[in-house]
Structure formats: structure tokens, C-alpha cells
């Protein structure tokens, strides 16, 4: 493995901008790494070699001409989740429905990345339409966890998390509807952030559950995540739910945190996220992380958020309900797959046959679940009640944030499970999102940062940090302080312990 791919995004940018290495060399090193390992990892659905080298060349020419780099990340290679549209580059959402579709426009996130000189290497694998927690629901086969190829890399953004854990990309973009950035981050030993809902534009993000979907950064360090956060965040008139307010100062907060002082910061441990169903090694790592925060000067208290135990059931009503409506757009008429158009079938029959063929089992399950929850006679008991639970969860957060600055919990109850282990049991799969869902329902900001390896299986564990809406900077301050202390105590960053070509544990 080339030394270049082991560098952080901040280090790569510094070297590129100082002309110690060219952006083209950096991009080529990552493309070579993809060529070397992606047959095993399968993080990418599409690699845009030509486009990436051209984008890197443009950054180099600008620097050679003495111009300022377009952003602090200009020239750094990134992997983009295949749910964000890219003009001229396929966007499949991990579905046969969109196989071969070339979007006619860029998502706002894509446009901002391009304008910042970030080099897009390709599109990453994901659970179909972001529905899943393991990337096994991709129509194009699962992604393998770089820590152990027999295990899942999390989901839905398993391709994004695996690509950075396997050193195929320095940065990645994920989307988080119920934990799809944070849970993959946790099980691959990487950092993942779900910004405040409305902080990053959803324009061009293929909708799964519109009131919950939020794109965010995936990286190997907290500072890298912050740098990427600032590139993609900010008001966008193309998204009517975009927040018209300044981006929280996340990079400054990451720098501040890195000095290791958390005096005056109040941290609340969510009482409800422990006990039955939590792997002992996950809880042990979490408790050690809490001790570390205390050692850094934070005041730690226990906080009860009783409604959080209703978040998972509420989510599995709200998200499928919105999905059943959003996915009605795949009607085989204007774009995407069409089957049975043989002159004998009506438009409606073609639609039903195409959707049957184009969607996988989990997508069909959720569409039907949502259709059920929204039907007359069931609406009040299911969808209506779930919306009330959403209010109760927001109230629990509000009450907690009156007492503490951030909340913490394990990111997910277990380490990476084996591929195939939960595919036939939807409820077991859904439990992976138990701790991440409350922040989607309330819309506040949350991060997963690596907290170490679980003692029983040697696999990564993540610490979840949650902050109030628009206080994303608190995640970065606390996350960076914790990361620096953990790395100092353990002789370096966790992700560098990943086996070079994936092991078996």
C-alpha cells in the first residue's frame, strides 16, 4: 500500500497545496489502491478514473499558476454515495430500477464538492434506496468490511465507510436517514457525522424519507470530517427545508477540541441505551470512553430520555410511510427500468411488473408497510401515533439539552455482524439503528467516533455524540478532544490497525 493513501485529508491537502505532491499523483495512488483491493471489498459501484484524473489535473494547474486552491480540500479524493446525482456519471441507488441511469444534473452536494476542487473517485455501494443497515440489500452484491471480509460494513452507506477504512479514498459522503452514516462509521472504525437536518441540501439526493434524510461527511479523523462538513453544508434555495443560517464553525471546533481540554463541558449519558441486547465489548468500550471524557475535564451525568425506547418503532412507521410515497416516482414512464412493454400490457400493468422486477425484498416490504400505515382505518393508530412519538422524543432532547451540552451513547448495540446473519430477520436488522434513530426523528446533529476494539471479537466500536440542532460544532469539539486522547493512549488512530487486505476474525 502506498504511503500516500494512509495520509489524512488535511495532510494530503497540505502537501498538494505546498506542491510536495501533485493532486494527480494522489488521485492515481487511490485509483491504484481501488484496483488492488476493491475486488475484495466491493465499496464502489462505479469508478470514474477519467473524470477523477481530469479534476485532479485542474487543481494542479490552478496551483501551478499561483492561484489559491478553491478550498482547504482541493485535490483530495473522495468517494460519493450512489444516492447523490452526478451529471454524466451513473447513479443507481443500489437498485436495478436505476441501473444504467445517467442523471442530467448534479446534486447540490456534488456541485459543492466539484467547486471546492474535491476529486470524486466514483460512486459507492449502498443498501437499495438507503434501506438497510448492512449494504446486503444492494442489488449489486454486498460490500465487505475491511476489518473482516466475512462481515458487514454497516449500512446503508457501507460502501462509503468501507472505502475510507480500506484506504481507497481519504473522504466519503454518506446519507443518514436512521443511522446510515454513523452505524457504518462505528463498525468500520471511522468517523461519521449526521449534520443538523437542513444543514446540508437534499437537492439531488434521491429521496427515501424526506423528513429524515440528511447527507454528511465520512472520514478517518474528526478534523477531516469537519473540513468536509464545511464544504458541503450551507443554505440552498433549491431545497425548501434547507436552513438559512450560517454553517456552525465545525473546523474551528475541531481545532479547539484537539487541544484536549473539555473543562466546563457537560456530557449526558443516555440511561436507556445500555443493558439487554448490547454486546459486553461495546458497553466496555463505551464506559472507557466516558471515563476518558471525564479525564479530559468534562462533567458527566446520567440523563434519562424515556421516549427514546419508542424511537425505533416510530421510525419504522414514519420512514416506510414517506418511502411508499417517495418511491411512487419509479413508475417506468420517464426514466429507469421498464419491463413488459410489449403492446399487450397497459401502463398500469407495466408499472406493477417493472416495480416488481426492479425493487428488492426490503424495498417492497417497506413500501407495503408504509402503504398499510397510511391507509384509512390504520392511519391514526400507526402513522399518527408515530408522529406523536416524534414530539415526545424532541421534548426529551430539549429537556436533556437544558442540563447538558451533549449526549453520548454507543453508536450501535453490537460490532459488525456476519454477512447473511440477519438477512431473513428484518426486525433483528432494524435493531442496528436503535441508538441513532432519535437524532433523525428530532433533526439534531450527531456523530460517531471510534472508541476502540471490542474485547471479545477485536472489531471496532463507535461512540455516539449528540448535540442540539445547529450546534454541530459541539460534536467536533468533544469528538476531536476524545479522538486525540484515545489515540495518545493507544499509540495512534484505530483505523491504522485494519488488516491491509482484510482479515478474518
Amino acid at each position, binding site marked *: 500500500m502506498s504511503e500516500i493513501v494512509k495520509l489524512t485529508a488535511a495532510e494530503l491537502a497540505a502537501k498538494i497545496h505546498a506542491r510536495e505532491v501533485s493532486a494527480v499523483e494522489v488521485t492515481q495512488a487511490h485509483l491504484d489502491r481501488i484496483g488492488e483491493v476493491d475486488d475484495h471489498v466491493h465499496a464502489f459501484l462505479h469508478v470514474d478514473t477519467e473524470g477523477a484524473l481530469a479534476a485532479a489535473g485542474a487543481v494542479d494547474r490552478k496551483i501551478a499558476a499561483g492561484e489559491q486552491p478553491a478550498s482547504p480540500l482541493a485535490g483530495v479524493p473522495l468517494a460519493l454515495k450512489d444516492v447523490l446525482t452526478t451529471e454524466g456519471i451513473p447513479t443507481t441507488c443500489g437498485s436495478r430500477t436505476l441501473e444504467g441511469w445517467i442523471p442530467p*444534473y448534479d446534486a447540490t452536494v456534488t456541485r459543492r464538492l466539484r467547486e471546492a476542487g474535491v476529486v470524486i473517485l466514483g460512486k459507492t455501494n449502498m443498501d437499495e434506496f438507503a434501506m438497510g443497515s448492512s449494504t446486503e440489500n444492494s442489488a449489486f452484491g454486498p460490500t465487505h468490511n475491511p476489518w473482516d471480509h466475512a462481515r458487514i460494513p454497516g449500512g446503508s452507506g457501507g460502501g462509503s465507510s468501507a472505502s475510507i477504512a480500506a484506504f481507497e479514498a481519504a473522504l466519503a459522503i454518506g446519507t443518514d436517514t436512521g443511522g446510515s452514516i454513523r452505524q457504518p462509521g462505528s463498525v468500520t472504525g471511522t468517523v461519521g457525522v449526521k449534520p443538523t*437536518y437542513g444543514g446540508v441540501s437534499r437537492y439531488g439526493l434521491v429521496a427515501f424519507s424526506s423528513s429524515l434524510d440528511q447527507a454528511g461527511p465520512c472520514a478517518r479523523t474528526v478534523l477531516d470530517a469537519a473540513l468536509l462538513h464545511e464544504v458541503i453544508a450551507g443554505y440552498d434555495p433549491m431545497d425548501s427545508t434547507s436552513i438559512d443560517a450560517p454553517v456552525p464553525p465545525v473546523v474551528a471546533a475541531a481545532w479547539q477540541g484537539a487541544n484536549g481540554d473539555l473543562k466546563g463541558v457537560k456530557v449526558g449519558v443516555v440511561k436507556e441505551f445500555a443493558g439487554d441486547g448490547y454486546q459486553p465489548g461495546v458497553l466496555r468500550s463505551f464506559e472507557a470512553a466516558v471515563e476518558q471524557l471525564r479525564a479530559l475535564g468534562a462533567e458527566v451525568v446520567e440523563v434519562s430520555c424515556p421516549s427514546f425506547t419508542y424511537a425505533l418503532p416510530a421510525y*419504522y412507521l414514519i420512514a416506510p410511510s414517506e418511502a411508499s410515497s417517495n418511491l411512487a416516482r419509479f413508475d417506468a414512464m*420517464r426514466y429507469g427500468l421498464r419491463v413488459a*412493454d410489449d403492446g399487450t400490457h397497459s401502463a398500469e400493468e407495466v408499472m406493477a*411488473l417493472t416495480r416488481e422486477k426492479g425493487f428488492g425484498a426490503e424495498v417492497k*416490504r417497506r413500501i407495503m408497510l408504509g402503504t398499510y400505515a397510511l391507509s384509512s382505518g390504520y392511519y391514526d393508530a400507526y402513522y399518527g401515533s408515530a408522529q*406523536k412519538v*416524534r414530539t415526545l422524543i*424532541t421534548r426529551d432532547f430539549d429537556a436533556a439539552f437544558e442540563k447538558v451540552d451533549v449526549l453520548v451513547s454507543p453508536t450501535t448495540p453490537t460490532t459488525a455482524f456476519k454477512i447473511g446473519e440477519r438477512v431473513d430477520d428484518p426486525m433483528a436488522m432494524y435493531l442496528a439503528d436503535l441508538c441513532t434513530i432519535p437524532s433523525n426523528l428530532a433533526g439534531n446533529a450527531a456523530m460517531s467516533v471510534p472508541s476502540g476494539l471490542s474485547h471479545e471479537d477485536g472489531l471496532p466500536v463507535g461512540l455516539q455524540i449528540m448535540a442540539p440542532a445547529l450546534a454541530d460544532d459541539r460534536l467536533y469539539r468533544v469528538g476531536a478532544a476524545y479522538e486525540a486522547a484515545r489515540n495518545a493512549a493507544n499509540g495512534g488512530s484505530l483505523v491504522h490497525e485494519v488488516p491491509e487486505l482484510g482479515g478474518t476474525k
Partner: protein
Amino acid sequence: MPNISRDEVAHLAKLARLAVTDDELDLFAGQLDQILDSVAKVSEVAADDVPPTSHAVPLTNVFRDDVVRPSLRQQQALAGAPAAEEGRFRVPRILGEEQ
């Protein structure tokens, strides 16, 4: 507690425009029953005095000036179409035999 029948799943599939197979009906009926059973607990805490939340950001309407902006060209819009004819989307017949 919910008890979703095979016929109900077939009806849902019809409403959702999914031409599911017989095998899928058996599979989904069992799974949907299990999922609905688990999520039904939301009604335990959904008291009458709790207002519903549909969205995390309390926004009302967002307006922009009514001005013409660039949009997709016809060719771009049709580029991803499963079938196009004379610069338009070609669709299968809309009416069935009985209409």
C-alpha cells in the same frame, strides 16, 4: 394486535403497484405481521394531548420570486426515458380492455 392476512398483503401490493408473486405473498405476510406487531407499541405513549410532529424543522411556506430559470432541455429530459417518440415520452396504453 395486528394480524395481517395474505389477502391484505395482496391488496397492499395492488395499491402500491407491485406485481408480487405467490411466494412473496407468503413471505411478506409473515414478516409484515412481525414488524407491525413490534411497531404497534407507539400507541402506548401517543396520548391525545400530544401534538404530532411531521417535520424536524418548523417551516411554513418557502417562496421565491416568480422568474424564469434555466431548466432541463427536452433532449436532457428524454435522455433517461425507457422509450421516447417524436420528442415525447412514449408510454404503454393507458386504458385497459374493460375501459
